[in-house]
């Protein structure tokens, strides 16, 4: 395979993984649903990117062990936590910190997802970087679509209050279900 084929294939894999990784998307959504400023969203997305890149790289080079069952259950728990927290906080200014810590767990989840295919051992850094860029592009694409919608909905405060509570409650239920499914399954 030539370099371009390999780069684009891993980029595609990253994109596919994030758009069909509904748990990562739900996590991202539950994080930004309370954001009122673009600056806060930028901080959250950056923290998530840096954190998951760190653990994905460490796992790819075999420097940290990956225990799929526990990591998947952990990812579900991170969503449960953020969904519960959404009922008690109104400001997202400091959320990047929580995102960074939880992003480390999600990075291991990304490493697990590519386990069956693996990175190209002869082009480790290039394939890892391409996969990561694919994830970032997908993530930014999702934020670019969701954020304007959320900001638009926020114009009607009464409506947004119940939308925000209902969506957080739904996220909580789904994530709790995933947690038990993954831990018992």
């Amino acid at each position: 395979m030539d370099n371009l084929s390999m780069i684009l294939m891993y980029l595609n894999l990253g994109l596919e993984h994030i758009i069909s990784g509904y748990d990562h998307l739900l996590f991202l959504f539950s994080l930004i649903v309370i954001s009122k400023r673009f600056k806060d969203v930028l901080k959250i997305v950056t923290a998530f990117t840096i954190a998951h890149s760190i653990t994905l790289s460490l796992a790819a080079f075999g420097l940290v062990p990956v225990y799929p069952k526990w990591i998947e259950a952990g990812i579900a728990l991170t969503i449960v936590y953020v969904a519960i927290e959404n009922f008690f906080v109104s400001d997202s200014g400091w959320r990047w910190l929580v995102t960074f810590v939880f992003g480390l767990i999600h990075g291991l989840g990304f490493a697990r997802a590519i386990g069956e295919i693996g990175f190209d051992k002869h082009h480790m850094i290039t394939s890892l970087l391409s996969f990561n860029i694919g994830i970032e592009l997908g993530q930014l694409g999702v934020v670019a679509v969701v954020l304007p919608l959320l900001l638009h909905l926020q114009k009607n405060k009464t409506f947004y209050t119940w939308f925000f509570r209902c969506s957080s409650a739904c996220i909580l239920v789904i994530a709790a279900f995933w947690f038990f499914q993954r831990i018992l399954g």
Partner: protein
Amino acid sequence: MRRTLFCLVLCLGIAFRSAGPCSAHPFNNGYTYIHLHENTADVRLLLPFLVMLQYDTNHNQAISDDELKAQQEEISAYMESHLQLFGNLRPMTYSLTGLKSIIQEETEDPMVELDFHFQSDSPIDKLDVVYDVVLADVDPDHQNFIQIFDGQGKVALQQVVDKYAHKLEYVNGGEVRFPVDFLALIAVLGVQQAVKNSALLLFAAWLCIQPVRLRALLKTALVFAAAGLLGSILSFRSGFELPQPWAEWFGIALVLSLAAAMLLRRNASGHRFAAALLGGAQGLAAFRSVMEAGVPGEYKMIFLAVFHLGMLLALTGMVYVLYTLAAVLRGKVGNRKKENGIG
């Protein structure tokens, strides 16, 4: 407060109802590792339980080694006719060498592992793989990631096979290149589909008679393209395909109802929402045509993005031309009114 509580309970109910079947990741992907030697190919095929449940005789949603052993002949016959390898265009002789239920090491996913040995009567210069496993009879949305390793154990080819592209071709020693020319062709296909689409042409015309600036219209075109891409992704993930004529008729009905609303209410709000609806419908319909054009499965997202970029370019072009025409016409009508002393 009551309304909030009612909505909260309703949403929780829906979430409980949908939490059962929903899953965080698709679990119907398979993996094939082909180690190519001079005259032979050793193939390891991993299939998730989800697509092998037809062999689950005790219906416990799991496949045991005993169940596999009891049905080995049946499975072998099925695989022989659904997974074929050709060496230099001649069918290779097939034998099933292993069949067991495993927990995949890296992911801890339960899977069925099938090992095959394929023999060619001459050194393999060209390998063709025809993969029809579970696609036609069990799960049309199944996809399999195939990796071919050369004699040195290096990955020589990675390709995705699915219902749209179930054949793979590998020339021993040849370098696989990304089809850049084909990417340009797919962008042209996007332009073509947009230009030929009467609903889109009507929508562009409707947009241009709105009392809004060109910049706002171009943003609407961007919303259309983004919704189109989302629609195609939805089609890819859910397996739902909207027939192209339906999407077109839906678009025409949408534009006509927008025009009727404009005449009745004398305002023209909601063109972005309409663009999102129209784009989503076109995206749902376009996925199939893009894949049937022969897009390689391992680059599908990139090709889909380029296809919708082509549609965006075409819609932007249409809007620009029609807007300019509308502006010229408005200018002429304005001048005539001034000459006649009207307004």
